[in-house]
């Protein structure tokens, strides 16, 4: 059974009515975050607070309430995620440099003895990766990546060899190329659009997954060098 309304002519009055409250919410949240940053002396806290500013941005984008707006939320999200990651890394390295070499290189070993952590990760990771593969694309990538990441982080004891890094990074680079090829096929040979669709969807999926899981590898702090 299909719906009575597939694509309306104009945006529905409900969404139009919600536009102002949504934009004002976004602006208010952004304002709160910005004010907090403006008197925040601590750099780490400022970094955490930018998360709120990002939420304000996403609300404003979502307030348009069309399919286009939804697909614009996704890039906004990704940008947010990407920048927060790069910047937190820079902050850490800055502090480590500031401390000089007297700091312990190895982080504290985590002696957690929770039942959840021994059984849950594998289960969750498998489900998430499977579901992510089913979804494909960005969403799938983020979900599967989250699963792998969780798995890697909760398995602190086992070492990941140094060349895992290059392997993962390389795989995601190749996946990106797949995606580019898919994108080109769409416009160069539109007849093969299905192939292009699959290339794009799975290229982005693999790429995002591996990128997200690299966070986990990074969380290991130190590679076991061979």
């Amino acid at each position, binding site marked *: 059974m*299909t*719906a009575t*309304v597939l*694509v*309306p*002519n*104009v*945006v*529905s009055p*409900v969404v139009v009515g919600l*536009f*102002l409250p949504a934009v*004002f919410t976004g602006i208010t949240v*952004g*304002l709160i975050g*910005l*004010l907090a*940053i*403006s008197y925040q002396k601590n*750099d780490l806290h400022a970094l955490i607070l930018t998360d709120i500013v990002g939420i304000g941005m996403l609300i404003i984008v979502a307030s348009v309430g*069309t*399919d*286009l707006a939804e*697909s614009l939320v*996704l*890039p906004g999200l990704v*940008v947010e995620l*990407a920048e927060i990651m*790069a910047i937190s*890394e*820079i902050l*850490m*390295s800055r502090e*480590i440099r500031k401390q000089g*070499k007297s700091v312990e*290189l190895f982080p504290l070993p985590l002696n957690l003895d929770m039942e959840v952590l021994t059984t849950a990760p594998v289960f969750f990771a498998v489900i998430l990766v499977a579901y992510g593969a*089913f*979804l*494909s*694309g*960005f*969403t799938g990538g983020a979900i599967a990546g989250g699963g792998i990441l969780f798995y890697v982080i909760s398995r602190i004891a086992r070492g990941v060899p140094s060349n895992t*890094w290059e392997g993962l990074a390389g795989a995601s*680079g190749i996946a*990106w190329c797949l*995606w580019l090829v*898919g994108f080109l096929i*769409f416009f160069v040979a539109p*007849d093969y*659009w299905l192939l292009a*669709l*699959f290339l794009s*969807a*799975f290229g982005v999926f693999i*790429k*995002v997954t591996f*990128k997200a899981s*690299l966070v986990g590898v*990074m969380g290991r*702090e130190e590679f076991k060098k061979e």
Partner: protein
Amino acid sequence: MKLGRIWNTLANPKRIPRFYSVIVGLVLIAGFIVPMAYDNHQLYPRPTPQLQIDEQDPFAPYDRGGAPLTEPGIVKSQYPQFAAKQGYVTGYLSPISILVSNTTLYFGTSIYSSPGGLIDEILYYSRGFDTVLESSILMMAFVVASWVALNFTMKRKED
């Protein structure tokens, strides 16, 4: 000279983000006063929220019509003349999706996003270039973060 002193305080990199956020904040406050007129003739409009799911559409909320591989769905894009296969991605259903949609009414999102579906149409076809950039942004962020991590955070002993 007081002006000079203010200028000097601003030259401290730590103050610039704070200063910038104050400026953005001031402009945002203006947003409460500015009259905001929403133009309801938008691209890619969608049905009223919850309308499709209330009508028990198995593809809700992303049902835009069309039959897999034969008939394109309805897409209100900006430049239909530049998209030869417009609507096909929206109308595409993978075999699994057809199976799921026949079984249950509540898995619309999954069905419509396993290659094919409206969001894929926008993200990969009509606005595909955005996605190229988006994934490049992610890639660059990872390159930066991983380089910093590899060279500064981890391999410090070799300095």
